[in-house]
């Protein structure tokens, strides 16, 4: 079960969505609900509940284990109103925002059977900076390239299983903010990079030389998203133990 390539966090939502697809369909959640809810969770909830959702006693959000709620509506009500007399505060969310967080939690639970181990962070760091050549595309604090996703706080944002999956698996979808784009100018110059912004008339990206670029669409011969992510699969490049160590390093990255 080690299919090919995909860019690290790009694949994270995708694989989980595939696993969670059936359950999500039952609740009528879309992939963008899960993505939006994940963003809200990471900013507002992760500090107390942790990326895996298991930092509070008796609660394991990543496995659908709640103390006082079962239905989506009950969970959303707790997210919005908090639990009086406990450390769970009310959140400043609309009802629909609270439901996107529920959608994200449901997606976590649906993929909870993926087993993963976080190995030795120190060995993982050596692999990250050496054999894995991860800094060629990724950045941690002030080292590495800005072209791929910055991983400085990836351990706060992604679960162990998600990180492992991104290293070995090939996804079918990407996080929108990390997609690669390719333009060919009218004079034949090809520029590739991570898309930052676009509108009807222009495109903004950070190119592979880490330069901020803007193109008028009228000046382009071609422009489109890349169909393949530059993220390689490490299934055949690293041993399972090395991948585990790499995951251990990534989970240790908690920001500045």
């Amino acid at each position, binding site marked *: 079960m080690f299919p090919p390539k995909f860019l690290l966090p790009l694949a994270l939502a995708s694989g989980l969505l595939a696993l969670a697809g059936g359950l999500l369909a039952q609740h009528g959640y879309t992939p963008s609900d899960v993505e939006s809810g994940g963003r809200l969770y990471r900013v507002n909830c992760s500090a107390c509940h942790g990326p895996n959702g298991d930092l509070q006693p008796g609660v394991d959000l990543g496995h659908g284990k709640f103390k006082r709620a079962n239905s989506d509506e009950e969970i959303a009500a707790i997210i919005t109103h908090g639990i009086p007399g406990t450390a769970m505060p009310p959140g400043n969310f609309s009802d629909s925002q609270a439901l996107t967080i529920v959608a994200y939690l449901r997606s976590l639970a649906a993929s909870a059977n993926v087993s993963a181990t976080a190995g030795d962070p120190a060995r993982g760091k050596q692999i990250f900076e050496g054999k894995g050549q991860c800094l060629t*595309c990724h950045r941690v604090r002030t080292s590495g390239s800005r072209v791929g996703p910055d991983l400085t706080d990836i351990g706060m944002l992604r679960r162990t299983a998600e990180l492992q999956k991104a290293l070995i698996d090939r996804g079918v979808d990407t996080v929108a903010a990390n997609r690669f784009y390719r333009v060919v100018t009218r004079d034949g110059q090809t520029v590739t990079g991570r898309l930052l912004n676009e509108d009807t008339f*222009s495109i*903004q990206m*950070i190119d592979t030389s880490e*330069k901020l670029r*803007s193109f008028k669409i009228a000046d382009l011969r071609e422009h489109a998203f890349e169909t*393949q992510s530059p993220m390689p699969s490490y299934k055949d490049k690293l041993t399972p133990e090395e991948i585990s160590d790499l995951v251990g390093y990534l989970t240790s990255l908690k920001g500045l």
Partner: protein
Amino acid sequence: MKLRFLLLFSAAATLPAQVTSDRLMHSDKEPQNWLSYSGGYQSQRYTALKEITPANVKNLELQWAFQQRSLEKFEATPLVVDGVMYTTQAPSDVVALDATTGRVFWSFSANVKAESRTCCGRVNRGVAILGDNVFVGTIDGRLIALDARTGKQVWKVQVAKAEAGYSLMHAPLVIKDKVIIGTAGGEFGIRGFIAAYDAATGKELWRFYTIPEPGEKNGNTWAGDSWKHGGASVWVTGAYDPELNLTYWGIGNPGPDWNGDKRAGENLYSDCVVALDVDTGELKWYYQFTPHDDFDFDSVQVPVLANMQWQGRDRKVMLWGNRNGFFYVLDRTNGQYMLGKPFAKVTWTTGLDERGRPMRQANMEPTPQGTRIYPGNLGATNWYSPSYSPETGLFYLSVWDNYSSVYGKADSDYVEGRLYMGGAPRNVVPLLMQPAPTLQRREDEGYGAVRAIDPRTGERKWEFKMTDVTDAGILTTASGLLFSGGRDGNFYALDAKTGALLWRTQLGGPIAAGPMSYSINGRQFIAINAGTTMYVFAVKQ
């Protein structure tokens, strides 16, 4: 596929050009960029770009606009580096834009604390840049370095305590490997300071308190414990002379603002310009414009540096239009007073003596019942960036004339985080925070103007008069243009030699920022904020 991606990333070896210290020292060699708040260390807010001229300025048209995500005043001057614009939006957020289209590359939210305290707006005036990083101060007292290409935070330091009323509002000044910033909060009883931080790490390298302690030199200019909460804030970016290795900063008023009874003495270094050694922060000289100020005459104007012939000699001068109503010329090598003349109606003093010290007018001071005094509380000018054009040899500033306040005085006790002002003035002209939707004011109740002053004589060469007052800065160009605007939302181009109106447009909101200019592929742009929006103009193609 592997080969393709290897090739794809091999280009990473050719990184974009960094903004080195050397580039900042010689920013005049790249007028297409605008690398610091005032456009260069001399702070002349002058561009050598010449594409927009008196002949074609009438063909300016809007290229793009950017709306900040705040209803606050939009006071920032953007930087432009090789086609990328960096600016701040209130309260302390940073955005990187494509300078050709205005489209956003990245944005950074500082998520400032609710406990932040500001007297006069939750605003920010811009960023500084060095190497790969841009630097911003926040109203909750943090200095933050961001990766210029991603907006990701690189480091942050807590410069001062927000709960005690300290805030950071002005664009930092980068000199060599240092990021220099001062603290606002003069109305909250802070003890102001200017500090330098290592641009690479955020480590504090030196700190200059704008109020000396008892026992230090000039510590005896504050009675009792008044030095502890004497204000002397810093909220506009300073200047730098590389040959002298001195950085110059304007210092704010002493506190409490309108009641000086508890702070007998000259209250140094409030209302001063200070000259600091960049490497050590050591004070080399100071000049105080308003000793023992009880009018709130902050001297936080931008220090404008120029080299000129003065009475037959080449002099390194500093040009200063002060909030107290006087235009000054100082020798910036030693702080020697060279010239001082009023540029607006002044009643608080009978004039300056031979050393430039004001002689106070009897009975012209704040009183419990109030005293009408010119200029009013917001000054004959204020923080609005002036300009000096080497081409015309003239100094230009935004002026409020015929403008007074009734200065009231009251008791005030210091409580941390609370306003500490010792009274309040009553103003005919409202603060910009409460702009009047309509205007019905007689000329003798206050009006605005752009004035051109000959720095060799202090004489006015011309003025462009406005009905309302102005909070706008001024930009001059090598092609002989002057750009500025007013609280009425008009933005205009004048002939820098004569003041003649050459072009104008209505931008729909008060202009409370300085114009700047840059060019991309030979096309010159002019950027200005009005209301909550930045507008960018170029000659129609």
